[in-house]
């Protein structure tokens, strides 16, 4: 465990521990700055709608994440309904998805995830292309592909899919045998909440909920194990509300079980 992370855990444990006598009296100890346990709730977010208005042509909005080297293209219509597709090489794309292959062929693409109305393109950030220019290039390519009538997925794609029950069983085995024993030392746990088609939904609980390193745990640990067990796995979606819970960024563990 990195030193800074261990230090933060220690600080959080100190913060989470009630001051002497506080629990019985129900009063804060003098000078105590610790927030007493309350359930975190959310108000409805009155954000301006980002939905793409319907129109005759294919309309696409892009969300750019420079740090993750990702462009999420949100299309005003379904691109792949009921299932999802993820690939990391032109060879896989050539086998299963003409749309993904077109993206790889455009250059600098590391992975493509197609799920419902969204296409997430991870790129290699090569050359002098700006984020906006790259997003426009991907958007134009996807629009052109969808308007051409060429299917998103190759014939026979769905025939390769395991049943939802098979996916659930395989992923649950990975969780029980590899994932949860590995993160139990940090009081973390992963729960498989649903499988729809070949898309898996999980929640991260215990010490993982709200942990700044949870996304790394998910991508570099859980996701790789899941994909090894179920190569046809498409999107892996984290449904965890990392800001909710009674102490979402750290849950105190019983004495003797601290990380």
């Amino acid at each position, binding site marked *: 465990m990195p030193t800074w992370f261990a230090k933060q855990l220690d600080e*959080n444990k100190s*913060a*989470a521990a009630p001051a002497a006598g506080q629990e019985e009296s129900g009063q804060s100890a003098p000078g105590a*700055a*610790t*927030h*007493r346990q*309350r*359930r*975190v*709730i*959310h*108000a*409805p*977010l*009155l*954000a301006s709608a*980002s939905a793409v208005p319907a129109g005759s042509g294919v*309309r*696409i*909005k*892009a*969300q*750019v*994440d420079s740090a993750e080297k990702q462009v999420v*293209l*949100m299309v005003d219509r379904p691109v792949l309904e009921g299932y999802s597709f993820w690939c990391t090489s032109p060879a896989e794309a050539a086998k299963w998805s003409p749309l993904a292959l077109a993206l790889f062929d455009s250059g600098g693409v590391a992975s493509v995830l197609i799920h419902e109305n969204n296409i997430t393109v991870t790129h290699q950030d090569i050359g002098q292309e700006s984020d*906006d220019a790259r*997003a*426009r290039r*991907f*958007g*134009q390519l996807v629009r052109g592909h969808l308007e051409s009538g060429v299917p998103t997925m190759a014939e026979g794609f769905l025939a390769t899919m395991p049943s939802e029950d098979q996916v659930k069983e395989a992923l649950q085995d990975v969780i029980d045998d590899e994932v949860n024993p590995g993160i139990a030392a940090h009081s973390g746990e992963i729960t498989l909440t649903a499988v729809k088609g070949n898309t898996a939904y999980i929640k991260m609980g215990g010490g993982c909920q*709200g942990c*700044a390193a949870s996304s790394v745990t998910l991508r570099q640990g859980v996701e790789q194990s899941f994909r090894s067990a179920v190569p046809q796995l498409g999107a892996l979606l984290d449904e965890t509300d990392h*800001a*909710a819970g009674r*102490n*979402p*960024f*750290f849950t105190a563990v019983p004495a003797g079980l601290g990380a």
Partner: protein
Amino acid sequence: MPRLETIEIAIETGKRGLDRAPAYAINGHELDFDEVSGGKGSRETLRLVGSPQSVPHSLTLTGPDSGCWDIEKIEATFHVSGGDPYTVSLGAVTLDQETCLNLWYERPPQLLDV
């Protein structure tokens, strides 16, 4: 994750007001606001300024010690390091002695028409 320097909050109270001085908690540590103006009673607007000067893993508005606080609307402006301020608007919610309200929202993503 950005460092939150200050947060400015305007809260429109509904039917039931707040019974205590407003407070917030960052990463589980409860703090008083630096500036409090306006009213916390029914149908009044409370204006608050806090200076967490920290990286927020959690940021919450503390509920009342007893009874309920009906909030009609919240407008929170975040001043983060290395970026322009941004504002988030929240709708109606009721807090009580068991609850606190999530206040931490990262900068809304910018969407491009492509």
